[in-house]
């Protein structure tokens, strides 16, 4: 599994993180696991890049965080989407769909 890690473009990583948090507030490890599971193990985000993204998005006011206690009783920082974050996710998703369908049109053309 660790061998099949994909290098992600930054915009794509942001999109994945924002989307993951629509499942509800969660800590960094939770985001990492969720992305891995929801993509059927196709995508494993490098943790260093994930945390950088979380901090950057929080700085941009797209995420907010609070300290809490994890399911196995560890002190953990929980992230959640801010209203700005939700809006950004909507825009990013629309862009992503247009982009991927355009690429698909070309690549899938016979």
């Amino acid at each position: 599994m660790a061998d099949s890690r994909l290098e992600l473009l930054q915009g794509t990583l942001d999109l994945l993180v924002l989307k993951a948090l629509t499942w509800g507030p969660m800590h960094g490890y939770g985001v990492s696991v969720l992305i891995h599971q929801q993509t059927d193990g196709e995508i494993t985000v490098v943790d260093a890049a994930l945390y950088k993204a979380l901090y950057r998005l929080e700085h941009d006011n797209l995420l907010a965080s609070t300290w809490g206690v994890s399911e196995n009783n560890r002190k953990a920082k929980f992230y959640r989407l801010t209203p700005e974050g939700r809006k950004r996710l909507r825009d990013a998703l629309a862009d992503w769909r247009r982009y991927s369908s355009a690429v698909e049109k070309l690549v899938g053309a016979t």
Partner: protein
Amino acid sequence: MKMPDFNGLRRYVTLPGRKRARIVRDVDSELETHLAMRAEALERQGATRDDARAQALREFGDLADARQYCVEVSRRTDRRAKWRDWLSDARLDAGHAVRLMRRSPAFSAATIAVFAAAIAASTAANSVLRAYLIRPLPFPEADRLMSIVPGPSLAVFPRSPSLQHVDWKRVDSLFEVTAAWDLDGFTLPDGSRPDYIDGAWVSPGFSKTMGITPAIGRDFTADDFAKHAPVALISDALWERRYGRDPRIVGTTVTMASTDRPREQTRVTIVGVLPRTFWHLNRFTDLLRPLPDESRMPSLARLQRGMSMAEGEAKLDAVVRAQLSGVDPGWRMSLMSASEEHAANIRPILVAISGAALLMLLAACGSVAGGLVGRMVSRRQELAIRTALGGTSGRIGRQLLTESVILATIAGTIGVVAARALLVAIGPLIERQLGATVPGGEIPKVEVVPPTPPALDRSRVHHPSFTFPFSSASLFLTRTFANVPRVITRSLPRREP
């Protein structure tokens, strides 16, 4: 039973203003949690404890880089959050303050009026003070410009020696440049309207000392002085009054008669017009003519660069004394800062007026503060409610501070505008009453120009660099006084729980 996680709770309620150490600890703690969780998951899949830890670290990627990046970003986030909180609080406070002021318009108006009047008075008084005593004279390198005083002080010395036969040319070489002048009156009989004007015969160093560049035409040349040429410079005012600003005046020869030197030539060529900005220590400026080559005591001298006033004075006194005999031991030649000499007679008045204005400002601050404190009593209920709702004394204090700052800002603005109007209206009157012309021509009007440090004040731009600190000082004073309510909030009755 497990102990509650006080540490986590404490973190949860910590205000945004965390210190760097706390940020680093938070980032470390978050990353460590991640590694531990991943290692646990790997252990569950059958890895040994050590292997699991090692793999979690490997998978993480560049941990040190991520840690540094997160700390940096977190610090920036923190700072911004702090600033944003501050701003939104300030907006709330300001809105509240404005509503309160509207609710008691009479009190607000009275407070503002008292305060604005005091600020206007002190700003105007200090503008005058600044114009005379603080702003440098409008001459190049005015800080080195000295008045030459024949005696130990400006007071008349009872047994002054006669200076008639002193060779003053030997004094000139002691200084960078000197200026001598002989005041005179001239009659201009030509044309439809004869004029009697104030003028002076000036030495070769005069232009350089005053920094004169003629607006049109030329300055006096060394030749003019050497050959005692019949030439003259006229002021902008005379050019306008008598010649209608006709540029053809340069090169024209006119007839003029000197009052003090009737034997001088009367057919004189005007070679240039002085700039409109030209200002002199006296009012004899409408016509300048080259002083005949004679020994005359200079009135102004600019010290050599690096020479102290005491040094210059000692040299001056030695050169003059060497040419005299039987001088009273108490007598000496002395130097005095030119600006100081110009304002010597009016200094006590100006200082007294400014002092009085300052005291008035203090009194106004006191009375405004008294009013605010008085109102606090009627606001105890409001404040008690806020305290009960969880307002800390710091937060309520800030609210009260905002109210005072808004009051003071409104009053300060009105005061400065009023001061400007006052100076425009009675500036010339002040100048006449004081009996000394304002260096540079006019009292600086308060204008909305960003204040610049006084050291940069070489231009003729009038700006309120002196008056602004005063308004700010008064703001500060009121703030300080108005903080008294904060002390009162501290002593508000605390309900027993």
